């Protein structure tokens, strides 16, 4: 047999399994312009929908007149709340337990809110129609500041005020003011305050994580097609969670779930923007039901930035206490969370502030408290996780700033302070003061590797020299060294405490092996650029011994894929990746029985070896997986059903906790505020590494999004509630010119509870990158008395900081 001459290494290599830098199978179509994104879809008779949006941030709607719009050639229909009301679709539930207007019902709560939906033959006629819808508004007092909103007499949500017998509770318990949404807490407030009271040293700071937006290059959109003959609704769209969308559409429309097919085609980036359900989807479905033809809705960039899915907007008041020699004794945090006009955060039901309670970070902090107040304002709804697990970037930014602030208070080196307080390797699994159980970690090793790689002591010496030179008038540039050690919490999550709209956050994989030894696997997740078709095939190749190139991965069609909760929060690898491995193992278990039958030995006498089962002690006797696959279909094997298929639904026992050590070296021109990133070193530990090439790509991308957020990207409002950053002219997306080359590195600390030990990586660089860039800016001015300055650190703000510190002479 020719197989015998190939070595084991050759056979491993031929599989293209886990750990290899497999090239992406997705790339052929994308590089040739043959991707299939939702806006590429063209169906016979398809109409185009477009929104009339509110120019005001808070106003009552006195009247809407659609006559002139209806007279436009090509306009087919104009929907308003009055049309949706009889169907009960003028409001819809949000993922956060609140509800949201689909089309303005009597008033508007933020600029850009959907007021009417114009349906026309093409996008030009729709735009003409939008221009001619006449809406009469009565302006109301605008609240854009969450602290002012909590004091104001102005009632934003009249629908939530009850019947005069006190404020009704919200989805997360009692509310203390008519503009208050929820109060949520973790940890031990009393004990923490006691510790702070008695502490040797306490550092305090207010850390604001500004409002921003995920802004994937492709905006949100959908095509709804109601087939009235069959009663079937097909909905194509930019959905990060197609199955959840199907369930939501069924619940709100009353169409039975089996009559709804949701398809996520290729998605042009998501980063959290495409998790939620938006009015555009609902209106398109209704329009298709009304008109009987398919209706397409595609957001433009301005609509995207102004209305769908903002991220962050957390005001975090912090106190951190320590002994004089730097051992942290307690952490206190109170957050005021600006949720905009509706609470449309994408968080698991029981976590209205997401996993913000990971804010003790990488440190062994004995006692801690976190309280979060959610507030309504006249801003866009959302609160999505922009390239992070639920509110984890806020948490990590908070603790990594507090560590720096504490280091200043203690007059201590910030690296040293971290090392003193890291959770030690032997403390894992580690139970954190705010409730989580960290699965595994080796922070000191990662940190030491990072410090060595960048020659940390050398950098500090250079920085000290620079300060001297600056003071002596020899240079106008300061040098900042940004440090960050982050711990993420991803892979939501265990069904016992994680659900969205009551749907447990498991995920799934179904595998069919074809007779000739190739396979198709379908998953409940959906790639938005992460390369699932490539990496999941690698996991399977290793698990089932068939080449990755012979395995098709399919996602995103609810008619064919098993139910899953989708792709966000770095959950694909931790949850669906695990489901994939487990389904693969079921295949292998059956293959073992088939092999034993074919080899005429007992099941226990064969063992798996790369791509085959061999007879123990007689390795020259074997059956390859290819042979076994064929046998599964052509032999009548006693006691074994024909075929070779498996499905697995994986409910993770715990989250996974990727971590990493980042260093940023930055020069800052104090006269222009211009930053120059000289060096960025990123060490990531995401457990087992499935495809190093893809991991590296994820790290580059995440760091670049972090750079954007830290150095300029924001959704800003004026006091009238006007969005000041509604186009890419004002909303900062870095280009190749502004972005440095990154150095990547790694350690491997597998997750002990994950079938293949992988933890997920897509979001780590964003979560770790933001504080690292910000710390570098703050650090540059430390020698001149700066403790903390808010992001985003654009040139103007940095110039202002320098000016306030008296550095402009």
């Amino acid at each position, binding site marked *: 047999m020719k197989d015998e001459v190939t070595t084991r290494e050759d056979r491993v290599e031929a599989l293209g399994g886990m750990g290899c830098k497999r090239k992406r199978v997705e790339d052929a179509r994308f590089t*040739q312009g043959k991707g299939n994104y939702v806006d590429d879809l063209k169906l016979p008779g398809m109409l185009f929908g477009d929104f009339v949006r509110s120019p005001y941030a808070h106003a009552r709607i006195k009247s809407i007149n659609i006559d002139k719009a209806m007279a436009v050639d090509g306009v087919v229909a104009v929907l308003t709340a009055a049309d949706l009301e009889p169907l009960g679709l003028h409001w819809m539930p949000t993922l956060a337990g609140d509800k949201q207007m689909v089309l303005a019902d009597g008033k508007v709560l933020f600029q850009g809110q959907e007021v009417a939906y114009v349906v026309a033959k093409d996008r030009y006629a729709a735009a003409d129609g939008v221009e001619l819808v006449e809406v009469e508004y009565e302006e109301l007092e605008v609240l854009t500041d969450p602290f002012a909103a909590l004091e104001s007499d102005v009632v934003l949500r009249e629908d939530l005020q009850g019947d005069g017998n006190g404020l009704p509770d919200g989805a997360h318990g009692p509310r203390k003011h008519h503009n208050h949404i929820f109060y949520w807490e973790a940890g031990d407030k009393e004990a923490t305050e006691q510790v702070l009271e008695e502490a040797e040293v306490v550092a305090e700071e207010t850390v604001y994580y500004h409002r921003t937006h995920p802004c994937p290059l492709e905006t949100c959109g959908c095509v709804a097609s109601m087939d009235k003959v069959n009663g079937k609704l097909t909905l194509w769209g930019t959905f990060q969670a197609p199955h959840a969308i199907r369930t939501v559409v069924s619940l709100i429309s009353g169409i039975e779930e089996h009559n709804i097919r949701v398809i996520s085609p290729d998605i*042009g980036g998501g980063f959290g923007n495409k998790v939620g359900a938006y009015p555009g989807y609902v209106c398109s479905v209704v329009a298709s039901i009304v008109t009987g033809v398919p209706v397409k809705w595609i957001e433009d960039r301005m609509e995207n930035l102004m209305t769908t899915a903002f991220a962050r907007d957390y005001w975090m008041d912090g106190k951190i206490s320590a002994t004089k020699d730097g051992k942290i004794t307690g952490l206190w945090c109170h957050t005021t969370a600006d949720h905009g006009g509706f609470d449309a955060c994408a968080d698991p039901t029981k976590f209205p502030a997401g996993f913000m309670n990971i804010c003790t970070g990488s440190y062994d902090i004995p006692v801690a408290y976190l309280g979060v107040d959610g507030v309504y304002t006249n801003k866009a709804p959302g609160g999505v996780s922009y390239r992070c697990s639920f509110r984890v970037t806020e948490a990590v930014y908070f603790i990594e700033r507090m560590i720096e602030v504490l280091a200043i208070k203690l007059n201590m080196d910030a690296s040293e302070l971290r090392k003193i307080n890291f959770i030690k390797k032997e403390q894992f699994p580690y139970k954190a003061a705010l409730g989580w159980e960290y699965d595994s970690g080796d922070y000191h090793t990662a940190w030491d590797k990072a410090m060595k790689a960048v020659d940390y002591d050398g950098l500090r010496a250079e920085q000290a020299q620079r300060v001297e030179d600056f003071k002596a008038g020899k240079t106008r540039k300061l040098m900042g060294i940004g440090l960050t050690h982050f711990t993420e919490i991803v892979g939501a999550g265990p069904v016992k405490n994680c659900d969205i709209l009551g749907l447990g956050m498991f995920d799934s994989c179904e595998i069919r092996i074809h007779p000739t030894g190739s396979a198709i696997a379908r998953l409940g997740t959906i790639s938005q650029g992460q390369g699932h078709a490539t990496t999941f095939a690698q996991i399977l190749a290793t698990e089932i011994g068939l080449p990755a190139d012979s395995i098709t991965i399919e996602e995103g069609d609810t008619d064919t894929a098993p139910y899953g909760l989708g792709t966000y929060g770095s959950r694909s690898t931790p949850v669906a990746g695990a489901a994939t491995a487990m389904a693969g193992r079921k295949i292998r278990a059956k293959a073992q029985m088939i092999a034993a039958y074919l080899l005429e030995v007992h099941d226990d006498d064969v063992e798996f070896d790369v791509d085959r089962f061999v007879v123990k002690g007689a390795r020259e006797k074997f059956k390859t997986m290819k042979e076994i696959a064929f046998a599964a279909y052509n032999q009548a094997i006693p006691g074994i059903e024909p075929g070779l298929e498996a499905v697995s639904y994986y409910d993770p026992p715990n989250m996974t906790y990727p971590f990493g050590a980042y260093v940023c070296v930055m020069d800052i021109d104090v006269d222009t505020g211009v930053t120059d990133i000289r060096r960025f070193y990123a060490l990531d530990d995401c457990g087992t590494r499935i495809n190093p090439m893809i991991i590296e790509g994820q790290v580059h991308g995440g760091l670049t999004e972090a750079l954007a957020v830290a150095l300029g990207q924001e959704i800003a409002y004026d006091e009238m509630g006007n969005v000041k950053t509604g186009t890419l002219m004002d909303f900062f997306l870095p280009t190749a010119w502004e972005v440095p080359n990154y150095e990547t590195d790694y350690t491997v600390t597998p997750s002990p509870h994950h079938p293949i030990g992988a933890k997920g990586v897509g979001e780590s660089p964003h979560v770790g990158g933001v504080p690292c860039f910000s710390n570098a800016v703050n650090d540059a001015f430390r020698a001149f008395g700066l403790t903390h300055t808010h992001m985003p650190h654009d040139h103007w703000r940095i110039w202002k900081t320098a000016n306030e510190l008296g550095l402009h002479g």
Partner: protein
Amino acid sequence: MSNKMHIKMNVNGEEQEFLAEPRELLIHTLRERLDITGPHIGCETSHCGACTVTIDGKSVKSCTMFVAQANGKDVTTIEGLGGPDDLHVLQSAFKEHHGLQCGFCTPGMITRASKLLEENPNPTEEEVRFGMAGNICRCTGYQNIVKSILAAASELQAAKEAAE
């Protein structure tokens, strides 16, 4: 009275003739009228470059050009650069060096890069970064895009030298 205009243009080597409102944007002509969906729409304000095509030898953002302005011109899109049987060097280099993730920016990136390499066949990394600054990518952080373009440049150079 129809306000439509008679338009003729050559797209990827094929003559196209049709009536269109002069206000129609070229990107919509390509995508919706001619079913050439490689070029994408990321902003419609000339910032992102997802819609980049080549017109009469120059890189153009087709979202901010009226179809009337493209009348009589030669237009090349990603589809005209290479296909399954005749991949452009850049198309294989982007795959080889992981120069894409979601792929949404990729057609515009590659179309722009193909012009860049014609304008400057032997660019430095800095020149690539500067020459590509009109094209935004949200996924890759550019490092591997730059790598892909530099690799394609050396490959094209090597092929040229071999031919000489």
